């Protein structure tokens, strides 16, 4: 009778045979990698949060194991949720990238050669972003021993069956080498510019270059930072990119955190951001605004972490009477002050800042402290004066001995809450400072002592016989 009675298939999912069957679907797959990196467990929220709350600028207000308490107070073990979930999310995104690289190669006949190359380049860029992120928490910083310590396993082919569980950790240096290989291969193949609807939410050539400044800075390779940055930063103010996607500091930092960047021709600050939408939100307890924003006035925050009065919030930029525009990105609730950079209430559709042009300028400023102090100061001043036009740095702050610290301080002010504090502490070989509040305290963690880096996920240890725990 019914010949196909036993042949059922879901109406809501696509069989793998059809996954690369048209140019539109292949583009969808590329977006799927971005979506994987952007998941709330990873770059859609938690990765930034972990990196900030490890630092000394935030104090826990809601001591909840689900919202990062043990990250904040360096009390993680290998099966703590953040350790397991972030590891899983990073590698799930890497696998998507690997599958897309293989899928585009296998179906290249459906695409123009340039488009095929561009898609593969985007996948490589994202793979590099994932590996870089994994190193920041699960491996010792490059500075420790020039990358001789154990990094993470390098998975470079798509996985979809039962084989291949065991893979050893490559060294930090090997992983950085792969990251740079991916970025260097991606750079020429990436689009110079993208259509308006994709500006800042997908990688272009300038995105890869900007990201390389961060990667080289993490490796302490200052001259390479300069080489890369020079491709997208003019020699003198006003600093901007002269080729590819227009990049320039926006006039007003509050516009940068208005919640969305896309489709705004003047949104030149976002080198890369991850979009959110009502139907593509970060998910419960992953949202930046939920952690940092206030709950009053229906702001949607849960006041999980407030600004440490003795952290960067002690800087005069945030003092009473300060006219620095970045002060307006904070709000008082009760006895504490909260960061309000991220402000969209539920379902929390703030775009995630991944790379901002301000960071590129500060990366370059830090790299030129010794080699070109005048340019370094000019870059620093550009960032400062965007938010406080009349501000003149005291001369002592700009002395050769102090300039780097001044830049690093500016970095903490400018990039507060954007996931930079922990990687910065670590690449500089510093320890994590002690911090405390009424709801708990966290000890100081000296450089490369217990708790300084995260353990490898317990699930990995259990299922990958070649893995070595930190």
């Amino acid at each position, binding site marked *: 009778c019914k010949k196909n009675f036993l042949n059922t298939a879901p109406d809501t999912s696509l069989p793998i045979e059809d996954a690369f069957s048209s140019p539109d679907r292949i583009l969808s*797959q590329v*977006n799927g990698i971005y979506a*994987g990196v952007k998941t709330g467990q990873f770059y859609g929220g938690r990765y930034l949060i972990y990196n900030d709350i490890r630092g000394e600028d935030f104090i826990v207000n809601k001591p909840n194991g689900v919202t990062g308490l043990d990250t904040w107070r360096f009390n993680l073990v290998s099966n703590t949720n953040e350790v397991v979930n972030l590891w899983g999310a990073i590698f799930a995104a890497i696998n998507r990238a690997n599958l897309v690289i293989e899928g585009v190669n296998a179906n290249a006949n459906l695409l123009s050669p340039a488009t095929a190359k561009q898609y593969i380049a985007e996948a490589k860029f994202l793979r590099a972003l994932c590996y870089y992120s994994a190193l920041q928490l699960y491996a010792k910083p490059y500075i420790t021993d020039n990358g001789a310590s154990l990094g993470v396993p390098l998975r470079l082919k798509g996985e979809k069956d039962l084989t291949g569980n065991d893979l050893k950790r490559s060294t930090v240096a090997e992983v950085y080498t792969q990251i740079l290989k991916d970025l260097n291969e991606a750079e020429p193949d990436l689009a110079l510019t993208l259509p308006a609807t*994709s500006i800042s939410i997908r990688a272009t050539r300038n995105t890869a270059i900007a990201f390389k400044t961060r990667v080289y800075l993490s490796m302490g390779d200052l001259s390479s930072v300069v080489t890369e940055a020079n491709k997208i930063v003019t020699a003198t103010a006003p600093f901007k990119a002269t080729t590819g996607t227009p990049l320039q500091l926006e006039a007003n930092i509050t516009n940068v955190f208005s919640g969305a960047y896309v489709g705004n021709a003047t949104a030149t600050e976002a080198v890369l951001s991850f979009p959110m939408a009502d*139907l*593509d939100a970060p998910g419960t307890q992953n949202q930046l605004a939920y952690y940092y924003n206030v709950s009053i006035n229906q702001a949607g925050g849960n006041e999980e972490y407030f600004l440490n009065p003795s952290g960067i919030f002690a800087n005069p930029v945030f003092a009473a009477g300060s006219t620095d525009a970045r002060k307006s990105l904070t709000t008082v609730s009760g006895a504490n002050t909260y960061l309000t950079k991220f402000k969209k209430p539920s379902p929390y559709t703030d775009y995630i800042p991944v790379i901002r042009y301000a960071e590129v300028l500060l990366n370059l400023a830090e790299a030129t402290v010794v080699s070109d102090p005048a340019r370094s100061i000019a870059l620093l001043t550009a960032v400062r004066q965007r938010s406080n036009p009349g501000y003149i740095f005291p001369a002592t702050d700009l002395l050769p001995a102090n300039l780097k610290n001044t830049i690093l301080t500016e970095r903490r002010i400018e990039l507060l809450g954007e996931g930079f504090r922990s990687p910065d502490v670590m690449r500089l070989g510093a320890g994590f400072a002690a911090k405390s509040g009424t709801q708990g305290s966290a000890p100081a963690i000296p450089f490369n002592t217990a708790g300084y880096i995260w353990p490898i996920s317990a699930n*990995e240890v259990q299922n990958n016989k070649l893995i070595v725990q930190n």
Partner: protein
Amino acid sequence: QDRTITGTVTASEDGLPLPGVSVKVKGAAGGTTTGVDGKYSLKVGNKATALEFSYIGFLSQTKAIGGSSVVNIQLKSDSKTLSDVVVTGYTTQSKKDVTGSIASVSGEKLKNVPVQSFEQALAGKAAGVNIIQPNGVLNNPPVFRVRGFNSISLSSYPLIIVDGIPVFTGDQSANSAAGNALGDINPSDIESIDILKDAASSAIYGSRAANGVVVITTKKGKQGVTKINYEGWVGTTKAQNLTPLLNAAEYVQIKNEARTNIGQAPAFFLQTKSDGSQVETNWYDYAYRTATSQNHALNFSGANEKTSYYVSIGYSNQEGFIVGNSFERKNGRVNIDHKLFKNVTIGTNFSYSNTLNRAPNTGSLPGQAFSTVGLGRLAIVLPPNVAAYNEDGSYNINAPAGSVGLGANTIASNYPNAAVLVNEDKNTSESDRIIANAYASIQIVKGLTFKTTYGLDNLKIDNNSFVNRLQGDGFTYGGGATSNFVKNSRWNWSNTLSYNGLFGDHTLGALIGAEDQYTKSLGYGATRQGVIDPFIKVFQGAFGAITPAGLIQGDNAFRSYFGSINYDYKKKYYLTGSFRRDGYSGLSANNKYGNFGGASVGYAISEENFYKNLGISKVLTRVKLHGSYGEVGNINIGNYPALFLYNPGLYGLSPALSFAQAGNPNLTWETSKKADVGINLEFLGGRFSLDVDYYHNNIDNLVQNAPQAPSKGVPGNAITTNVGKMYNKGFEFTVNSRNIEHDDFSWTTSLTFSTLKNEVTALGNNNADLFGATSLETANITRVGYPIGSIYTVPTAGVDPATGERIFVNRFGQKLRFSFARATAARYQYLDGPNAGQNAPAIDAALDATITGQSIPKWFGGLDNNFRYKAFDLSLGLTFSGGNKIYYGSLAGLRDQRFWNNEKDVLNRWTTPGQVTDIPRLVYGDNTSNGSAFAQSQNVFSGNFLKVRNLALGYTLPKTLFSKYGVSNIRVYAQSSNLWIISNYPGPDPEVSVNGNSTTTGNSGNLAPGVDRNSVPSGRTFTFGINVGF
């Protein structure tokens, strides 16, 4: 010479006339039946010496005629014959002839028990059947296991067949109001429950039989005038064995002492009200209550030669002891069988039910254990020195933080005010369900019958939840509502041809059949957030945002061919075999079909002539040996596990397509090879019986969501695959005894006792361990060589009397002292040995934990005693279980040294050197010493218990009082459930499993059994009821 005999047949119990009784002359053909008044008239020949009277449900009697022309007789009802038939799938069989292993429970035993679904009442009633009630949430499905845990990753719930229809099971609710699908069936409609345990009896269900098959037969009308029965009860329920907590003054003292011990200023203070009294809140008062329940069942039944009917209606309204928890069921049933022509019978079983479940978020369902809004947890963590309400009657809340008000404390509790949640939040799950079938049966020639049956189970569920904007889950988004509607529909069409024949001493039965089944589920729903005006409490109101939620789409199909054969010679030698070929849509094209089968043999030694001549045959009147072997399957693998799938989604506003499921084209069923040997012994003609069975279930091809190294990035880090092996084996004993049988006094006893040994013998990925998580916590491991879901904790060795610090034992056997008061790197120090006092590496729960014991009971059973003295009856039902360990995770929370309230025992904390205690020195913020940070062995306890499950005292009113009103029988009774628990377990109830039946990774009931974490306790119920028969 013929003469005419007349007489009246009455029932001995009530003296009422019995219509339809067959009356015939002994040794002759023909006869008659009694009329509605019980009278008969029969012409007999002169050779007739005696009359035989027979009637379904009554013992047949033969009475000599003598010279009389009037023969009156009283027939005794035969409760044994009612249960003498077992339903073995598509056929029925006399219990005497069964050679497989089938446990039968009469519907009588479920009568009047204050439960929501029948299987809750099965505890201790059938050997080999283990029922664990997870906690006191109403209509929460019990963990129902037949002969052990028969799967690791798939459902181990038995297949439930109601009147031939495989019905939906499990918790069908999408929110906190548990909705056991079997709660839709009115227990008082059930005639019998037959549990097919071994392969020979269950193989006719093929790929779905590995967990055992439970065949439910609903009631049918019996020959005679219309009978009307009413059963009703009212009752009250209270929570039992609540853990004593610190009062306000003790809380302030303990928490401040903890702060002082780490050099922090006191932060907790008593709050004085305007009348000078102090705030003292028992949060249990806001979570638990004394609840009332009522239950009514009314049925009409009867039959004549052509038609039998059973019509029932029922209403149950049960309140739980948890505030806001209730279960309300309305149901109706019509069962009709009608002889259309001489050789054609048609019939239907049609039932409709509406069930409304309501509950707060109890934190007690799978996946909820660590919810910060779970009522079970809130009641024990909220500070007792803070009021639920302000003096002006408003809620005491810390508005900007979304938590309970501070009172005089300077540190806020993170937790919301329980009073707000129980008053303002709502969860309901309402089901509308039709379970029905219609059949036609045609006798082609004598003994050969064709039957076609079409059955359906349509289950529609309307789930609604609302969370308020003040406190709890709805706080950050300004309140919200989630509703979804799910349609589950299944049809099942089976056609069978059966043959029964008697050839001299040879009895033969055979069956062949084919069956198609199709199941479809569709769900629609959305979540709304941001209540526009606080009066809005429903999904349909005005909200700021809406996103889809609870979307479900899936289908699956079975196509099956099956057959069975029964043969016996002189009721002495038995041979049966059955076979099924199942095709399942969820498997890949080359693997759709599988073959299953089983066979059994039986030998009734007591039927041998030599035995009958033995002296012992006078005492040991029946001896039957039986054995069976077969192979069945478990196919609860979901709808599409074989397929590799990509899911469309969004990247911002752009379409995004991503890898969503690593399928497995080689996937096939789990196979369960079941062996069974047993013996049935009857003494003194059945007055005392003993059944003993030994079973061995070898399960291989275990389907496992085989964990993949997360660095592979496979979605879900798992691929469904056939790996792994496990066995369950054990003994089962059933004793039934009619100890005393007098007219005025009788005493019967029944005992079931079962043992279970489970061992996992192979797992996927080179025998990689499987961890069983209870949401955020892992306290179970499934490891080769050990029972499934063993308790897995970091070993501790008490509290160091010198320092008051918790002693941990690491994987090298070294003892470490822990103090949260020291700097991170110095928190763990060696207790003794050459490095004593030096800093030690921190405990790593994943590496240092060890197996602390098995979590599933090694033995369990029940003991029922029933006494009757004249019009009084008394029944005492005990259940017992043990040999297992329970991880009492709640105790970690009850001793946690954050702002949480603690149990009273914390007053015994270490304070002075040399003091021996099991509560470490208190250090504020310490979540490690007592087990919150990772599971620890001091929170593992024996799960042995003996429960007075049921105690009932009844009185049957004298008939003379009311027989003139047509009432035949009135019995009143008082009853208690869960009256008493004898156990060393420190928590409320050792019969507990917060992960229930869930198979979801992260809260799997099979991978993480025996966990008591933040769940509500169980209840104790008293009922008063009445049964009336007309």
